[in-house]
């Protein structure tokens, strides 16, 4: 094996996001307990588990809303455990929410432009003047937003207030806003929750496009087992705050603990 090859191997093997021994308690309730997982660069990784398994709590720790009681979360080897959410966003982790969190008083375009916030530099004075650099910057970033608008087919909604859009469209705009950040890692909290089959297919296609065309690593929380098993490279299973399984979709479906805790229980879990 040549030196160049082993380097390339190591780069591919080094995970972009690592979660190591992370625990979080709320009062007496343990939401997440000693969870470790690795997200390979360029992969689509799903986190599944029954309701209350700690999936969203885990995501909230990665994006900085909760600080873990123990454990380390690292992006490309740098610990981000103690950073504020805005700092983590600037490092390149974007996310969407289970209950859509768009800026409802602003247009689709402005929502996307806000996604560009960390890439823009204009200060108070140059903004107030709106001349020269500030204006050029606005136009340059508008172009980047238009690429995303085209990518997600939102052209005719550009100047619509997001508060007036349908549920599926708002989910799509929220994905667009996260993409505008040009993230290295995209966290999606139930992007297909509450959608019908057509909308789910659209969203799954968007997620795949994001992953393949834009090379963004995706971490997905999703309840639809069909979608999860179809598009994921890796699946991690949580139950009552603990990790009970992980691996390729095929491996996970064969793990007895997973079948017992999730897929085989009375909730059924879907189409597998």
């Amino acid at each position, binding site marked *: 094996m040549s030196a160049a090859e082993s380097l390339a191997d190591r780069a591919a093997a080094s995970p972009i996001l690592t979660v190591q021994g992370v625990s979080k308690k709320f009062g007496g309730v343990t939401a997440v307990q000693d969870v470790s997982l690795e997200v390979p660069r360029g992969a689509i990784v799903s986190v599944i588990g029954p309701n209350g398994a700690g999936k969203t709590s885990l995501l909230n720790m990665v994006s900085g809303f909760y600080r873990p009681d123990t454990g380390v979360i690292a992006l490309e080897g740098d610990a981000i455990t103690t950073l504020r959410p805005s700092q983590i966003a600037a490092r390149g982790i974007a*996310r969407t929410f289970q209950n859509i969190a768009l800026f*409802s*008083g602003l247009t689709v375009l402005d929502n996307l432009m806000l996604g560009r916030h*960390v890439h823009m530099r204009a200060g108070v004075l140059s*903004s*107030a003047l*709106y001349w020269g650099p500030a204006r050029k910057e606005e136009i340059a970033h*508008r*172009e980047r937003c238009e690429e995303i608008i085209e990518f997600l087919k939102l052209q005719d909604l550009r100047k619509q207030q997001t508060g007036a859009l349908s549920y599926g469209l708002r989910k799509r705009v929220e994905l667009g806003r*996260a993409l505008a950040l040009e993230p290295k890692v995209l966290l999606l909290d139930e992007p297909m929750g509450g959608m019908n089959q057509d909308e789910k297919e659209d969203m799954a296609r968007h997620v795949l496009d994001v992953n393949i065309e834009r090379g963004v690593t995706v971490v997905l929380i999703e309840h639809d087992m069909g979608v999860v098993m179809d598009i994921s490279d890796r699946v991690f299973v949580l139950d009552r705050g603990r990790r009970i399984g992980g691996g390729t979709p095929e491996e996970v479906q064969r793990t007895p603990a997973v079948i017992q805790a999730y897929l085989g229980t009375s909730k059924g879990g879907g189409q597998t």
Partner: protein
Amino acid sequence: MFHRESGIFKTTYAADMALYPLPIAKATVAVIAAAVVLLPFVLGALMPALSANYYLSIINLIFIAIVGALGLNILVGYTGQISIGHAAFMSVGAYTAANLAVRWDLPFWITLPAGGLMAALIGAVVGIPSLRIKGLYLAIATLAGQLIIEWTINHVPAISGGAQASIEVPKPHLFGYEFKTQGQLYFFLLFFVALAIVATLNLVRSRIGRAFVAIRDQDIAAEIIGINIYRYKLLAFAISSFYAGVTGVLYTYYLGIANYEQFQIVVSIDYLAMIIIGGLGSVLGSVLGAIFVTLLPIAITWIVESLGTLVFEMQQIQHVVSNVRVITFGLLIIVFLVLEPEGLNRLWRNIRNYFRVWPFSY
């Protein structure tokens, strides 16, 4: 004003992002600007100097109010933080400028930004509670700020200039030209009003303004896309207070005296009324609200004085006027909050949208 978009195509993002993308809108703005510039001459030609001066003095008050209302709207309307301390920030600007002008004989082009910056600094400090609390609690915290600043200015002679807590300042002058008469002050104030309006329009359509609105609409989502909400809340307080400080300086030069009684809590409420009646989160709304709230007491005085003599003794009229003013004010705020929370700006938009497709109803 009334215009339609059909047949106008934009081919660049720059054209689409212009403040007034349509040629006819640009023309409208130019016509309004010309009318505003010519107004004093028209008034001077139409009526005797005394009444022309009277009307100009009212317009000058409106100009000053517009600057303050724009500032408060940035904080309350755009960023969604509440402040009942706006008048106190004006007094900070006013006394800063007055002290600089009197003690060191500095010209207005130094005292004006200095007053604004000092108010911005104090405003950011008063805004610190906004990092932890929202809504009603923040209102109380800023109310405390208002009272503390009011008390301090009133009780520290080094700031207030002695027992009357007032400092006389010379009229502003530039290159030996002194702005003395109402007509001259009109142009002095007009310059700063135009500056404030353009700066606000630009601010709210660019990176900073979008971040403010993001905090108003969804502070959690704002943080997640990389907006440091602590920093931007304080920035909103600072910018808003800068406007307030400048308002205080302008008012001081207009009156020729800095007096804490001009910046009491009632004035804070007046400014809140302006942006609620005019329209929260709207530049045009700030302007309309400032005009409306400035003219309202004058209109009430005029009505009560001409009709009230039928009912009241002449000596009581002043008393009645001030009470009617307060009642009308409260009533109007309630009416607007219930019937048209987006204020005069929304009413205007409704009218405009109606004529945009007129005579069709779709």
